[in-house]
């Protein structure tokens, strides 16, 4: 995974409410998807609103690429309507008095023609809402409304896309309906995105960079894979602890219904995805609880994916668990094993082991 050397978004805010203080000093990449993750009330939405200019932090320095948007020391504050952002709220918040077309054109016609990089047709096509263009918002389903809201934000050709839990107000089927569209935006548009969520699933599915917030403070900020596998963070201890791997499809074993995926840690077999061409990059999620360790290479096992690894760190978890951080040719992986197994096998940093991966999920 890539890291930007110049880290072009600088967000330093201090903002106090009677019961809560937000204090951040962040450097974020101005590319890919940065996920702001944390429990509700941790300040992630407030942070996003500060970046959009909807909230004015008393102390704030915000620089996006070369442009300063806020500098409280110089009393400079770019009003929200002059910031080149697209904002998607938790609720679709469509203008009820305008049709879908009217909603989409509202922002688009307010930006200069030379700044229009995303055509209305492209936004419609990306979100699959061409057929809804002349409808009024009252006649759309919840999922359709939110897709229109996302297209409306894209139609202003933003330099930065801000999304505040765009799926949180929807039920599970609607969420599954929209997630693929968000993944497409990620792949097809070169717009950096800040994405607020409290859902681990959305983090692993969409994120490139992860910022974890707790009670108004930044607990961690870094590359998604590195941050998810940091043993000093509570996320590595939870049952949801997982790693995200970037792999390349390198072949199919059609007879067995399997697809081969390669990465710098070796080769894995996945359930067949014939539709996916060789060379396609996929994202896999592997739960720490689905990884077990052996000292010798197992000769006879029903588990297909057994990869050589080296233990880099171990840490004691809750309820008799040990959390093991592994390196597979540089790619990090987490394994949850019982403390008893860790003692019996003598697991410690530097030890070469074999990681047996019971299940993978293609994201």
């Amino acid at each position, binding site marked *: 995974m890539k890291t930007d050397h110049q880290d072009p978004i600088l967000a330093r805010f201090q903002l106090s409410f009677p019961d809560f203080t937000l204090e951040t000093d962040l450097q974020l990449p101005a590319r890919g998807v940065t996920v702001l993750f944390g429990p509700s009330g941790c300040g992630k939405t407030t942070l996003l609103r500060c970046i959009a200019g909807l909230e004015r932090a008393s102390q704030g320095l915000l620089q996006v690429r070369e442009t300063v948007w806020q500098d409280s020391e110089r009393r400079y504050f770019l009003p*929200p309507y002059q910031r080149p952002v697209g*904002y998607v709220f938790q609720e679709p918040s469509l*203008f009820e008095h305008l049709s879908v077309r009217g909603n989409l054109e*509202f*922002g688009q016609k307010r930006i200069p023609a030379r700044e229009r990089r995303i055509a209305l047709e492209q936004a419609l096509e990306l979100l699959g809402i061409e057929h809804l263009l002349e409808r009024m918002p009252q006649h759309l389903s919840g999922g359709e409304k939110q897709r229109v809201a996302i297209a409306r934000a894209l139609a202003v050709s933003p330099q930065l896309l801000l999304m505040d839990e765009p799926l949180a107000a929807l039920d599970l089927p609607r969420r599954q309906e929209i997630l693929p569209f968000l993944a497409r935006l990620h792949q097809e548009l070169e717009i950096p995105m800040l994405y607020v969520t409290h859902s681990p699933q959305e983090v692993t599915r969409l994120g490139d960079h992860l910022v974890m917030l707790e009670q108004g403070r930044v607990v961690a900020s870094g590359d998604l894979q590195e941050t998810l596998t940091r043993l000093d963070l509570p996320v590595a201890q939870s049952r949801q602890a997982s790693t995200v791997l970037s792999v390349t499809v390198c072949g199919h074993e059609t007879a067995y219904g399997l697809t081969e995926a390669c990465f710098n840690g070796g080769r894995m077999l996945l359930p067949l995805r014939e539709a996916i061409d060789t060379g396609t990059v996929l994202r896999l999620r592997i739960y720490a609880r689905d990884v077990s360790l052996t000292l010798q290479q197992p000769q006879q096992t029903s588990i297909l994916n057994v990869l050589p690894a080296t233990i880099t760190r171990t840490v004691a978890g809750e309820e008799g668990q040990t959390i093991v951080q592994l390196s597979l040719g540089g790619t990090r992986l987490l394994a949850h094993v019982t403390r008893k197994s860790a003692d019996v096998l003598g697991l410690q940093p530097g030890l070469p082991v074999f990681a047996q991966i019971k299940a993978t999920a293609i994201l």
Partner: protein
Amino acid sequence: MPTDADLVAVLLTLKLAGLTTLILLLLGTPLAWWLTHSHWRGKSVINALVALPLVLPPAVLGFYLLVLMGPHGPVGQFTRAIGLGTLPFTFSGLVVASVLYSLPFVVQPLQNAFEAIGTRPLEVAATLRARRLDTFFSVVLPLARPGFLTATILGFAHTLGEFGVVLMVGGNIPGRTQVISMQILNHVEAGEYLRAHWLAAGMLVFSFVVLLVLYGFAPHARSRR
């Protein structure tokens, strides 16, 4: 049949109500907007003042307006100093009194409409590059249209029916301050009940139709209130 004086009174009343409603919409819109979005602590004082004509006997309001606008009142001295003379017993004085008297009937529906819209559409508009005034005309005004309809109808209808304030401030001058309700009183005092009926029944029918429109034929007018 109505007399010529009756027709003059009807036209004067319509002119008064129309002008008052127009002024109230122009003044009441920014006032209602401010009351909706201001975080100022003293806001409740203004809210109470706006609502005061709802509970105050019209005679009390009329009495104080008479005192204030009279030759010895501060407003009266001011209007005399700038060469307008004194306002009591003139049409202008009646307009000023009506504006105050009908204020809550215009401001409150607007305030309710603005509150129902909330701040979210304003924020959405800002992220879609709309400046504040632009947002007001392109988002708030269309969304608050039912509220404006209610405010207009209530403001107009309420001004039509005023009596106590007119009695105190306006008097009974034909063509200047003699509105329908005064004319009804004149007929009753003269024992001309049939003539009073023409005007009274007209007002009754008109008021009923107004409310019917408000509640029945324009159901959307109430949904946003």
